[in-house]
């Protein structure tokens, strides 16, 4: 026991010095590094403290133990004083067998021979009655001189007493803690009850968000005020049922499940063991306190990674609400109490997470230092690396979602092989904006509101074709359902508007069957005041910045109050199957799109004359450049998924650049020369349809002195360039001289709109594909949309 005590004491001394070193660095680490890193460093030190077989390399740090000595409380210091004698430390060398440690102690204090002499001659040095060592020594006084190297320390040795005190203290501490826990949990277990379906759903959602595959079993419990995770071996999540309606609940649950993900209860148990082993060591208590604090900070950090200031504020609010549940009478002082100060620091940390480093290098330094100071050898190193790697994994990037291309894109129209979906803006009786969803059927040629009820007048609330969309309605067809996203002004509560620079919007995503039936809300995101959890979405919907990859919808939502320094948008990801919405990252500039798990940023830098595109993984991570090349007045580009099309009118080239592989292919260098008096010097590709890239150039027609237009299509397979028009030759005077979008391509036809003779409205037409690409389109007019 004495040897074990000595071994742990030595570990305590060396690692204690390191703890103090890192504690001094704490303010710096708080500022520069993430809580995850600090947590990892503390836990590394804690693991180190559990390993007793290190020895202080005296040759490396001869006088190092002196400052640690001061740390010990007076009573304990007196008991263990012989251990920390300077000469003593020098003798505790690596190569010395543990059994001989007793010999190294200075004469007159703990030397076995001296102790024997004392036992034999001095009655004043009799050991405490009842101690087993005392009885033992009394029986064997004559034997001891013959066994000078006995591992059993002399009965009167202060070291032995210290070891005994240490052991008793350890047992008492453990007993107290375990008993306390067992009683508490037993009391509480009587109140466990099954979760209500609503709470169960909330727990499942939170587990999905934090990516916890196997969430711990969860119970309701009337006796607690805040959700908690408890249990060392098999953690259990307890949720107070009265929080079911609390807006902060999802964030609280995410916090708890993140603890489960980090296995924080295991680490807390480990810290408890460390405290039990080194209960007399103030530096160890300091370590445990800091570690527990940083475990919380790291959890906050993980929950709020990539979230907007609004979510952070909502989280802070939930934190305060929990802390305030047992609020006492107002204190007389205006300063924070100790709890208040630490809470303030925690709240501050919520808002200062950006720009901190994860500090892999620092962690390695800490690991090395711990290993070096602890004199780790052989198996010691291996034992240490296991927990190290598990801590480090929590710091590493999360894996990317399965890469899929950014199709189908969302736009103000959507199409299938059978028909086209569009919207027309309307106003209701109170002059509030509405959007009506209309469907044009290609085979029957009819157009009308997308409502399966033949008796509906399509003008009153309840008609599935009516949407209270303030602006444009965005849609796409995903998995044989129509997905619609729109924002509508937050209803009519002026008190909510006072705080906002822009009126807040509700952002809705709904799905419906392609025949207009079974319209269902997928997710509704409200301004922060109404629902703190989804506060990041108090927003407009930005039309060019809405993307889909078939299983998710990506929305660039702007906070309802834009502040300098705040993100321009929060990129939200909405699962099209569950409606689960999570903020992915803050975006500080307009984004170009999503492709293969990446967000595309950047654009044309006219000053440098280059096009520079950069990509950030959607889950967060390093931003890197994916394309950078010359871009001048003669250049044009268009992106389709992960493919970039680049034209150069001076060289007559069209190139294709793959953003994933970096591969560049020349499609053709035979682009036609620009017409005379062209209104721009470049070809601007505008659309890829039917395996063809379309581009057009308008020019002053010298013969008619009016604006005219030339359109070309490049076959992406063969590189063949052909001219095309939207109207047959006899109607060429009506040809629109702007870029015209082709809404849909079916197997044998293209769908687009052409101006009516009067010029004030337009008709939807189907053009026979073969004749269209031959430059003489044969048109079939579809019935006009009502209201147009």
């Amino acid at each position, binding site marked *: 026991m004495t040897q074990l005590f000595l071994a742990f004491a030595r570990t305590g001394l060396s690692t204690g010095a390191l703890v103090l070193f890192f504690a001094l660095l704490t303010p710096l680490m708080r500022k520069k590094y993430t809580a995850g890193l600090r947590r990892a460093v503390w836990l590394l030190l804690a693991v180190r403290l559990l390993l007793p077989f290190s020895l202080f390399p005296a040759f490396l740090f001869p006088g190092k133990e002196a400052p640690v000595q001061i740390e010990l409380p007076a009573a304990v210091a007196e008991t263990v004083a012989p251990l920390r004698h300077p000469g003593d430390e020098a003798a505790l060398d690596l190569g010395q067998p543990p059994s001989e440690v007793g010999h190294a102690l200075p004469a007159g204090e703990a030397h076995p021979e001296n102790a024997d002499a004392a036992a034999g001659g001095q009655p004043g040095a009799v050991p405490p009655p009842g101690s087993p060592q005392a009885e033992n020594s009394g029986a064997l006084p004559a034997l001891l001189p013959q066994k000078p190297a006995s591992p059993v320390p002399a009965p009167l040795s202060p070291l032995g007493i210290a070891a005994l005190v240490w052991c008793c203290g350890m047992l008492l501490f453990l007993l107290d803690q375990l008993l306390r826990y067992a009683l508490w949990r037993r009391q509480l277990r009587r109140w466990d009850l099954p979760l209500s379906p609503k709470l169960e759903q909330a727990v499942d959602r939170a587990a999905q968000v934090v990516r916890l595959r196997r969430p711990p079993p969860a119970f309701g419990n009337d006796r607690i005020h805040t959700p908690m995770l408890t249990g060392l071996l098999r953690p259990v999540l307890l949720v107070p049922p009265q929080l079911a309606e609390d807006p902060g609940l999802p964030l609280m649950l995410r916090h*708890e499940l993140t603890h489960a993900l980090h296995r924080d209860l295991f680490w807390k148990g480990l810290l408890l063991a460390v405290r039990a082993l080194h209960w007399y060591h103030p530096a160890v208590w300091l370590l445990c306190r800091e570690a527990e604090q940083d475990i919380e900070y790291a959890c906050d950090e993980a929950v709020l990674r990539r979230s907007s200031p609004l979510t952070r504020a909502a989280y802070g609010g939930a934190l305060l609400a929990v*802390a305030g549940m047992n609020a006492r*009478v*107002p204190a007389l002082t205006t300063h*924070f109490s100790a709890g208040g100060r630490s809470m303030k620091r925690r709240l501050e940390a919520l808002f200062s997470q950006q720009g901190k480093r994860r500090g892999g290098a620092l962690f390695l330094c800490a690991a090395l230092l711990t290993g070096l100071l602890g004199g780790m050898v052989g198996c010691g190193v291996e034992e240490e690396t296991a927990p190290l790697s598990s801590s480090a994994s929590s710091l590493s990037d999360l894996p990317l979602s399965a890469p899929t291309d950014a199709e189908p894109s969302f736009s103000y129209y959507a199409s299938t092989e059978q028909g086209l979906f569009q919207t027309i803006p309307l106003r209701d009786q109170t002059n509030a904006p509405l959007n009506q969803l209309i469907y044009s059927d290609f085979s029957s040629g009819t157009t009308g509101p997308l409502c399966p009820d033949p008796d509906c007048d399509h003008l009153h609330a309840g008609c599935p074709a009516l949407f209270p969309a303030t602006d444009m309605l965005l849609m796409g067809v995903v998995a044989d359902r129509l997905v619609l996203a729109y924002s509508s002004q937050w209803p009519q509560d002026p008190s909510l508007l006072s705080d906002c620079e822009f009126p807040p919007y509700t952002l809705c995503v709904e799905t419906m069957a392609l025949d207009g039936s079974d319209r269902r809300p997928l997710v509704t995101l409200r301004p922060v005041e109404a629902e703190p959890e989804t506060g990041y979405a108090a927003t407009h919907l930005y039309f060019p910045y809405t993307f889909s990859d078939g299983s998710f919808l990506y929305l660039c939502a702007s906070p309802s109050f834009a*502040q300098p320094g705040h993100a321009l948008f929060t990129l939200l990801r909405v699962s099209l199957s569950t409606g689960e919405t999570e903020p992915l990252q803050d975006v500080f500039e307009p984004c170009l799109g999503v492709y293969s798990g990446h967000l595309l940023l950047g654009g044309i830098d006219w000053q440098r004359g280059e096009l520079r595109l950069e990509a950030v993984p959607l889950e967060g991570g390093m931003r890197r450049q994916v394309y950078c090349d010359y871009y001048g007045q003669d250049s044009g580009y268009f992106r389709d998924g992960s493919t970039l099309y680049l034209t150069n009118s001076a060289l007559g080239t069209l190139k294709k650049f793959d953003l994933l592989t970096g591969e560049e292919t020349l499609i053709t260098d035979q682009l036609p020369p620009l017409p005379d008096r062209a209104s721009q010097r470049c070809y601007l590709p505008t659309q890829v349809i039917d395996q063809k890239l379309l581009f057009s150039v308008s020019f002053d027609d010298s013969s008619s002195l009016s604006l005219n237009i030339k359109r070309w299509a490049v076959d992406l397979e063969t590189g063949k360039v052909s001219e095309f028009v939207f109207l047959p030759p006899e109607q060429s005077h009506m040809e629109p001289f702007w870029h015209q979008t082709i809404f849909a391509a079916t197997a044998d036809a293209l769908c687009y709109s052409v101006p009516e003779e009067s010029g004030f409205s337009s008709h939807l037409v189907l053009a026979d594909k073969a004749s269209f690409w031959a430059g003489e389109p044969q048109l079939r007019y579809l019935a006009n949309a009502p209201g147009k």
Partner: protein
Amino acid sequence: MRSPIAHLPDSELAVMQVFWRAGKPLTRPEIDAGLAGQKNWTVSTVVALLIRLENRGFVSHEKQGRGYLYRPLVTQEEYLAAESKTLLGTLYGGDPKNFIAALYGGGALSGEDIRELQEYLDRAKRGDG
């Protein structure tokens, strides 16, 4: 004057919890329904527990139709208050922090602290904190 509230064994507490969750007097089938999924007790067990609870002064019964209506006499708050006054409750009233991961594990904050922190939070939310 009612006799002091006794500490209930687990099984009797489970029955009382059904009353407290329902918040109204219950018939025995209703109690059975409330216990479903947690305990698999026979009718006679539940009746025995109700009799014991009645002897302790926790419930009373009155005739209703063909059966009885059982009425809780002790509220959950009263019971919890009494339970926390026991010796163990006094000794080990606090939560064992080492075994819990909760959103906030510190001591209670004063109302003043909370108010100041809320102000800080509001400032931070507006972006000038």
